[in-house]
């Protein structure tokens, strides 16, 4: 039995959660796709954002989205520092990217430990007036708890998209991903541009973290659960394509939502990864790859 | 001459919508020295990739020693005696130069020979090319010129019947070109058939017995170096209208 409103609601739910997936995976898309740096610790940066959001929200009553925004510059700086050290120890030495991967695994452990020591291991959530409410649009029902993350996710993606397309730094980042030699001949410093790009990637994590803690209770080990999904979205979208990441995230969201509605949720994560394997086997550059 | 060593018959190759080869015909007789020239983007490298097997043509046949090898894998062609160099050298960076040569020695030439025999053989080939001193270095430290010499040496290690050279002379000085040409003549005398793709006109004109000219995926001319030099169409292609 296929009822229209069930189907419609499933699709809407998929689109909403897709917006959130996009926000989480944006950072990977930028860092991994454009800079070829396998920052496996990205989900942990997201969780860090979540914990900061939780802390500022529960102690000062700040709105989670606001916290996400406030933290972006801080995360940008952190990203900068991480890239500088990565560059110093790996890229400059011409080390193979694989070694960088292990480095980020180490970083992942270090962040997890820092979170455990600073915030404890209890489940945490945030509060905001609108989080319990929902918006009824005829047969489609949209909860703010998911709608706000979707909206922010889309805004973030669009913003980044235009940043890459229109601004000097944005174009320079796109350029550096293709040919850093050519860029340095043009007088731009690839290292500086890359550290800006990395900073932007990490800055998106603070917002993604704020969104995450709005949707789900968080705990320090949660980051590991998200690694797979985050990478799946980034790859599906074609690494490095910000727009692609958004579309892929929404496709993944809809696929999961439809599976959950009609076949039982047990298969939904399998469906998304199966889908990923299929895409990789047929079109290795992803759905929207360059 | 009974039959050509290699025959490329009416080969087509497309990339997306772009026709890189649209019905090319080439042949080379045993022991011959063929030059293949044409402006950039005329399909020379695509042609070589089709001959060596890295690409499979959409239409047409490639015949080697009388056998249709159009669907054969590249490594089987290498074992059958077709060796090539790459326009942008593709060394095995994790190995020393000698080890680089051991790969074709073990795989293409004398399959599964013992390593020490292969190494000895490799050093002989390096001596022939004149880079015996580089044997124990890693390719990453080599100059462009040495890198190209190593590519040549590596393709020789496969004991080719047909050797295809994709711009080995690029960037070489005049004396170095002569040096390489001398080696190539010697190899040709030993019975190796050679196809040379080259932008260095002095080399290709001086070396080839016969030259074939490609433009936009088609043969436009063929003949002895002298004939080619005086061919108005070739002139048009190279100098523009």
């Amino acid at each position, binding site marked *: 039995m296929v009822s229209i409103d069930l189907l419609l609601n499933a699709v809407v739910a998929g689109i909403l959660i897709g917006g959130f997936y996009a926000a989480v995976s944006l950072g990977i898309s930028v860092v991994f796709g454009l800079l070829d740096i396998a920052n496996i610790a990205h989900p942990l940066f997201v969780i860090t954002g979540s914990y900061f959001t939780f802390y500022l929200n529960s102690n000062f009553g700040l709105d989670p989205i606001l916290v996400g925004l406030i933290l972006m510059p801080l995360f940008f700086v952190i990203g900068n520092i991480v890239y500088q050290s990565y560059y110093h120890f790996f890229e400059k030495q011409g080390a193979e990217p694989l070694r960088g991967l292990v480095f980020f695994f180490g970083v992942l452990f270090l962040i997890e430990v820092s979170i455990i020591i600073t915030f404890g291991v209890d489940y945490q959530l945030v509060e905001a007036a609108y989080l319990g409410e929902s918006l009824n649009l005829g047969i489609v029902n949209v909860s703010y708890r998911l709608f706000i993350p979707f909206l922010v996710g889309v805004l973030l993606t669009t913003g980044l998209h235009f940043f890459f397309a229109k601004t000097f730094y944005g174009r320079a980042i796109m350029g550096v991903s293709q040919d850093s030699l050519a860029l340095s001949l043009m007088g731009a410093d690839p290292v500086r541009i890359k550290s800006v790009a990395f900073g932007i990637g990490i800055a998106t994590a603070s917002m993604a973290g704020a969104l995450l803690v709005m949707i789900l209770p968080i705990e320090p080990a949660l980051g590991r659960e998200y690694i797979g999904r985050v990478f799946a979205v980034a790859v599906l979208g074609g690494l490095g394509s910000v727009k692609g990441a958004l579309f892929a995230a929404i496709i993944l969201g809809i696929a*999961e939502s439809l599976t959950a509605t009609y076949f039982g*949720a047990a298969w939904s994560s399998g469906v998304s990864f199966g889908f990923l394997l299929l895409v990789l086997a047929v079109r290795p550059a992803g759905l929207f790859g360059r | 001459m009974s039959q050509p060593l290699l025959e490329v018959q009416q080969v087509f190759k497309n990339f997306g919508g772009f026709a890189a080869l649209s019905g090319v015909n080439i042949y080379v007789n045993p022991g011959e020295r063929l030059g293949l020239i044409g402006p950039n983007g005329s399909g020379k490298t695509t042609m070589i990739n089709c001959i060596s097997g890295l690409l499979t043509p959409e239409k047409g046949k490639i015949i080697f020693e009388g056998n249709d090898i159009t669907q054969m894998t590249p490594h089987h062609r290498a074992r059958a005696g077709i060796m090539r160099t790459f326009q942008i050298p593709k060394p095995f960076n994790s190995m020393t130069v000698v080890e680089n040569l051991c790969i074709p020695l073990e795989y293409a030439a004398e399959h599964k020979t013992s390593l020490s025999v292969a190494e000895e053989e490799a050093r002989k080939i390096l001596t022939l090319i004149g880079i015996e001193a580089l044997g124990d270095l890693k390719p990453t430290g080599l100059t462009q010129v040495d890198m190209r010499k190593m590519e040549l040496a590596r393709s020789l290690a496969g004991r080719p019947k047909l050797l295809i050279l994709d711009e080995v002379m690029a960037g070489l000085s005049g004396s170095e070109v002569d040096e390489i040409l001398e080696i190539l003549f010697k190899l040709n005398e030993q019975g190796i058939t050679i196809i040379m793709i080259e932008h260095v006109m002095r080399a290709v004109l001086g070396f080839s017995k016969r030259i074939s000219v490609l433009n936009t995926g088609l043969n436009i001319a063929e003949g002895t170096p002298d004939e080619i030099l005086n061919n108005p169409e070739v002139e048009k292609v190279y100098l523009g209208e």
Partner: protein
Amino acid sequence: MKLLKRFRIQNIVGFLMGSIFISGLFAPSVYAAEPLKIGLGMALTGGLAAAGKPAKLSIEIWRDDVNKNGGIMGRPVEIIVYDDQTKPSNVPAIYGKLLDVDKVDFVVSGYGTNLIVPAMPIVMDRNMVFMTLFGLAANEKFEYENYFQIMPSGPNPLTDWSEGFFKLASEQNPKPKTIAILAADSEFALNTAKGARMNSKKYGFEIVYDGKYPPGTPDFTPIVRAIKAKNPDIFYVGSYPPGSVGIVKAAKEIDLSPKMIGGGMVGLQYTSIQMNLGKTLNGIVNYWFWAPEPTMKFTGIEAFLSKYQSEAVKYKYDPLGYYLPPFAYAYVQLLGKAIEGAQSFEQQKVADYIRNNAIDTVVGKVSFGKNGEWAKSRALQVQLQNIQGNSIDEFNRAGKMIVLHPEEVKSGNLIYPFPGWQ
């Protein structure tokens, strides 16, 4: 205070008897001072750390309590805890270390079935007493006689677990007819769902939806909507903390209001989650372990909780600690009392004592039956009522978590049907 006195008398008697017995064999002055070592692995990092860390704290509170009173049979207690990182593969080596290198006198388990079972072969090899913390039917395959499990799920863990929930439902008028069952794809939740299925049959409910969801599901609205389309009278949920929160929120947003909702949701007992959900919790019926109701004031529980709560703030653990901590205290307390009761450090004698006696703990009088489970189930069903807001004061006193089942600890009545989301 009465408890303390009895402790002392028992200890003195125990100490005297112990030393008389031992003095025949060894020089008592050396032996009496030797600490009684109890070893365990516990999830202090990784997925179960939120439960494991407070459990460790509770065990240490017990150790301090005992040592303040002269130890067990004169021997001060020493606890050796290793972090199993919530990884089963770490467990065998940890217990090997405890037994062969640290030479502990007794072992108890870590938290949860996954982390209990890997220790079983090693413990069984030596016929040791094995007090375990929240394994669900973990001993059914081993049938190990010296295994004792502190979770009050009862002799048939699968069905006893949700028995109360279904009994309550079946007593309502008109009797609900249909049920939807949703469970997290994890060991514990699936087992409760299995029990729920058996109980549905027993009490004559028709299952109209039976599904599971993978851990890490961020959005439950599609699932909840699919359930709403089936319009069940009862919604039985077996879930882990993130899912519990997600399901409650999604059900509220979509207004899925069956006549009864809840059952096996882990996490609703956690203070941080309670404070976040606040009024939304009202009306949910769910399993519980301990609630600050007048019927649940077992000897020593309040003293324990006040110690726990003052420590928990420092470490940012669950501030109230009503879920696991009393039982983590109880399972070592029970072991200690059994040693004293048996007047022996011998594994078999202690095990026999546990098997044959009802032992008083902070979670009540415990006696064991089949497979080392509680002889009689005391799986609580609690309904959350009268919650006005999100402050911690909403949850630290009586009248909020009303115990509905079992009869002997009942503290109030079920509000039926579910009054709708607030």
